[in-house]
């Protein structure tokens, strides 16, 4: 409740983001029989041994905790895919596409389905590295799409957790620009859709480092 005073700096708590991530679908392989579940959030099953089926992450984790299934890690969580993403993430200024809740989902699976993830140590360290690289380019990888009077920022491919982390300072920095409407910033602008992040982001970047 302490967040109330600063409601817009921390709109969602980490627990709330995890809650949202738990609704994403994931594949499981049950080891038991169970009739279909007609839940408020949707219909799932029927569950048959060795027959893969899609369920929300919270349901997958609940079944896994009770020893009733194995979880199939999503494609993007393979060493091969993650290595590609990490390389691309290091090379390019832009953010690579990853699931919106990749941070929360990977953490839930590390916590509850360790034995279902091949090369778990490698996977875990790749995801850590990707998170790091992405975090460090938050200052450069975001695209300012409007800098006339109202600043607008496109956060292409940013994940839920990352958006939540950048929210306080991105929103504060933009608000300050908006207020100042500084002539400096306007002169710098060469087009509405500025695709040169180094110039475009001079302001926010400085803000980032000052933190």
């Amino acid at each position: 409740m302490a967040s109330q005073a600063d409601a817009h700096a921390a709109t969602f708590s980490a627990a709330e983001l995890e809650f949202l991530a738990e609704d994403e679908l994931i594949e499981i392989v049950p080891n038991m029989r169970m009739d279909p579940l007609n839940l408020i959030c949707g219909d799932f099953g029927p569950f048959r041994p060795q027959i893969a089926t899609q369920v929300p992450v919270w349901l997958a984790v609940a079944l896994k905790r009770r020893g009733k299934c194995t979880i199939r890690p999503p494609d993007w969580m393979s060493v091969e895919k993650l290595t590609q993403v990490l390389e691309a993430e290091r090379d390019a200024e832009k953010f690579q596409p990853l699931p919106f809740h990749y941070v929360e989902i990977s953490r839930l699976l590390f916590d509850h389905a360790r034995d279902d993830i091949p090369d778990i140590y490698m996977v875990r360290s790749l995801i850590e590295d990707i998170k790091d690289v992405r975090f460090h380019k938050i200052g450069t990888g975001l695209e300012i799409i409007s800098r006339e009077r109202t600043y607008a920022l496109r956060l292409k491919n940013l994940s839920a957790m990352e958006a939540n982390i950048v929210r306080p300072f991105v929103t504060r920095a933009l608000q300050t620009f908006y207020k100042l409407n500084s002539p400096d910033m306007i002169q710098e602008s060469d087009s509405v859709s500025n695709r040169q992040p180094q110039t475009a982001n001079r302001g926010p970047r400085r803000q980032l480092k000052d933190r």
Partner: protein
Amino acid sequence: MYGKKGSELVKELASSEPGQLSAFNNDLFAQVIDECTGHLHHLGSLIRKIEELKKIEEIKKLNNQELEESEKQLLKAHNSGALIHHLSLLRNKRCLMAYVYNRAETIRSLGWAVERVLPEEIEEKLSGSEKEYFKNHAASLQSYMSELDLDLAVDMVPPKDPYIKVRVLEDIGNVLLSDQSANLARHAILFLRRTDAEQYISQAIFTLMLW
């Protein structure tokens, strides 16, 4: 300096942790109120003086005369003086209101956390009016919730799997739990609601299994 105490009051707010309350600053609060009363006295006497001068001015006008230069200066000075006292009063009022209003917000957020009765160490930090406000507000909230037939003071954070895994250490036989009847046979492994399991854990009939 006028308005200094009022700003100290607001600084006190600003320097406290969000969601935390310091003791209601009765002394400083009363001093700011006194300052307001002082401003009113000055304001009153200045307005009387201004009115007197205005009267003189009108009388002189009838005789095609103007105010003496010194009288003009005096009128100007009184006007500025009155304005200063008026603005100082407004400023103090805003500080007082901000102090009370923002504390009220924290008091309300405490209400969510503690449900109707404040712990003593918090209660003693409140002013008399604040204590009354807390009670009234709790009652307003209560009346909303009973009208809706829904308790909003629970479930403050997203739910997690409410079931925990336990191993039974003693033969107890069949017991009725909140959502199931369970056979508590030695060495059995069960998934139970945390709330159901707690009493047995404390009696060392169950042991909690982490994985």
